[in-house]
């Protein structure tokens, strides 16, 4: 039985839910719909994903839609991020609704955009047509732009404008790249609508014009790389992440970046195959990945704003993923594993940071004192989240970083390994310093302001527990999924 028809459904359902949000009366209802709707979509996505993992890729709509292991894996990660963030949104906005700073009108807009961007990201993942994929990415940019300034403060507007313009220009550059890729297929038997089908390109990869393909890939890397937050095109990222409401920041860092990176990953096997697997395209990813890690490390050192710190950490981790993919082989497996770990940890961290921000009235690290005692659930989860993000064992990021390092050294890429380690150490040192400064405080006698709520605890600690388990035990089937997904990136793991 072919479940391919579920793919368009997967796009349509959130789209319709988004429209539905516009007609809801109260903010609370919108938030609840966001949570329930997202979970519903996640359920469908889960079913589809499982199907792909267990059987074969799904196709639909004259092969314009496709879900293979790589995109299914991304879809699974994305739905986790969205589910956590949506549930968290209910908690996060509760206070604001009560205070009236989150009006019904804003909520409707929020709900609509939330599902809109969900739909757009699903579109990115399930489209086999590279042009449609581009459309999806551009759509996410435009839809999420307003999510940044749900509260139109000066800083939020500034961040949104930067995000909007940089990503638009970036995505325009990516469009140019897509066109070049299409042009490279001109001399082949592919014609018309087939010229941009990923599967078709993959099958005809040796007939493609390598020069155009290479040029196209560069444009794509820069274009989508802007959206993915790779240095030196990352400048919008700390601004946008720090100004957006936390559920949105969580989605931004947790998956928006990966969606853009996913687009680059789609093109990588094409360009690699066309250039005879000489590592031409991988070299670009390695270079940008390393640059991102090092640059992010330098900036993390000085961050006084928790959300900016987390944003730079995202730059670093996207760089790590790019580096892992660039290294290929087992590095790609590690990169995909890293993506999952990072998305979960970052979502939890942003969620906790947001609640702490509400509780302390600021995002300035220097005012966060004794968070573990004063705000037990969110404080603890933020500290653990930060520790996870800097690669403390036995959490999974330690493993994935180790695997990436192994990939680098197995390929005798000693300088890469060296830079990687230096970057990671700098991040470790600076984030740990902040984390310790936040976690505890000298005895001031201030009492805990938040009571422990089981639902809150479950929301943040389940993902962290998953990361812990994955850090000491990677189920065989999970490894197989990672390997299957990474096989689509070319090379043999």
């Amino acid at each position, binding site marked *: 039985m072919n479940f391919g028809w579920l793919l368009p459904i997967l796009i349509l359902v959130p789209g319709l839910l988004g429209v539905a949000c516009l007609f809801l009366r109260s903010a609370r209802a919108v938030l609840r719909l966001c949570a329930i709707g997202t979970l519903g979509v996640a359920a469908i996505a889960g079913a589809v994903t499982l199907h792909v993992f267990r059987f074969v890729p799904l196709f639909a709509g004259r092969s314009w839609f496709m879900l293979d292991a790589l995109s299914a894996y991304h879809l699974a990660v994305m739905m986790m991020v969205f589910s956590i963030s949506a549930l968290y949104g209910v908690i996060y906005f509760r206070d604001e609704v009560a205070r009236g700073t989150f009006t019904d009108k804003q909520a409707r807009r929020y709900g609509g955009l939330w599902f809109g961007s969900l739909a757009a990201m699903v579109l990115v993942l399930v489209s086999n*047509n590279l*042009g*449609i994929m*581009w*459309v999806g990415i*551009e*759509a996410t*940019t*435009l839809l999420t*732009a*307003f999510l940044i*300034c749900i509260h*139109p*403060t*000066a*800083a939020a*507007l*500034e*961040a*949104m*404008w*930067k995000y*909007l*313009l940089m990503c*638009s*220009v970036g995505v*325009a550059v990516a*469009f*140019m790249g897509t*066109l*070049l890729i*299409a*042009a490279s297929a*001109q*001399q082949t038997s592919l*014609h*018309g*609508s087939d*010229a*941009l089908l990923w599967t078709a390109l993959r099958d005809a990869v040796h007939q493609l*014009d390598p*020069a*155009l393909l290479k040029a196209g890939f560069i444009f794509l890397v820069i274009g989508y790389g802007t959206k993915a937050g790779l240095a030196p095109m990352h400048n919008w990222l*700390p*601004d946008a992440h*720090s*100004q957006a409401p936390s559920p949105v920041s969580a989605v931004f860092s947790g998956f928006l970046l990966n969606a853009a990176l996913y687009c680059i990953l789609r093109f990588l096997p094409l360009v690699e195959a066309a250039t005879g697997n000489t590592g031409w395209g991988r070299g670009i990813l390695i270079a940008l990945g390393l640059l991102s890690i090092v640059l992010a490390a330098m*900036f993390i050192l*000085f*961050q006084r704003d928790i959300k*900016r710190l987390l944003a730079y950490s995202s730059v670093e981790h996207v760089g790590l993923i790019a580096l892992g993919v660039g290294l290929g082989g087992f590095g790609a497996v590690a990169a995909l594993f890293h993506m999952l770990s990072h998305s979960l940890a970052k979502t939890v961290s942003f969620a906790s940071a947001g609640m702490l921000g509400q509780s302390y009235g600021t995002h300035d690290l220097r005012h966060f004192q004794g968070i573990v005692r004063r705000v037990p659930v969110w404080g603890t989860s933020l500290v653990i989240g930060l520790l996870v993000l800097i690669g403390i064992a036995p959490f999974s990021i330690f493993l994935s970083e180790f695997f990436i390092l192994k990939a680098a050294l197995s390929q005798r890429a000693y300088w890469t390994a060296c830079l990687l380690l230096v970057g990671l150490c700098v991040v470790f040192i600076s984030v740990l310093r902040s984390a310790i400064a936040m976690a505890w405080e000298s005895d001031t006698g201030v009492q805990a302001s938040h009571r422990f709520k089981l639902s809150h605890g479950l929301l943040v600690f389940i993902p962290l527990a998953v990361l812990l388990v994955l850090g000491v035990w990677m189920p065989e089937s999970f490894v197989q999924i990672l390997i299957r997904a990474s096989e689509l990136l070319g090379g043999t793991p």
Partner: protein
Amino acid sequence: MTLLQDTLLVALILTSFGMLVSGRLGAYIRMGALQGVMIGLLPLVVGRATPTLHVVFVAAAMIGLKGLVFPYLLFRALRESDTKREMNPFVGHVPSVFFGILALLGSFWMDARLGFPIHSSAALVIPVAFTTIMIGLFLIVTRRTALSQVIGFLVLENGIYAFGLAIVYEVPILLELGVLMDVFVAVFVMGIAIYHINREFDHIDIDRLNTLRG
């Protein structure tokens, strides 16, 4: 056909240069509209003997959007704002024109060097597209007001579109419409953003939007 095509392309470049030299935001928008119309017309005259129905449809949609809807949106944003002129671009108007000339020369050189596999009938489109892309980027980088950046973005988009026209023979209509839709939403969103920025800051000078740093 070639004559018509050449005329269009020359006009395209001229509008780009017009934006380089002009200092008034109103003129920007008008020239952007003009360029939009020409881009819309371009598919009708490039490469193919007889335009198919779908080409005509897309052309019509494009002319409608770029020639009418965008200018309307942008003029509305302009009316709301107090800023009417691009006062102090980072690169002055005269040097800008020099850049334009350089871009033109560079484009022809690059075209000759790269040698894209395209129909000879569209030979001129590539350098013109390059020039347009470069001028678009140049506008974004060197102009101060948010509005001129939007215009710059449109010019960039136009250039890329022209480029695509030359090197990809046939694009599925759904894709073209999707792209068009995106551009539309982009301009729409940017217009709203400019409106909000203007209301919040009393200016649309993006150089002064630099509180977020470090």
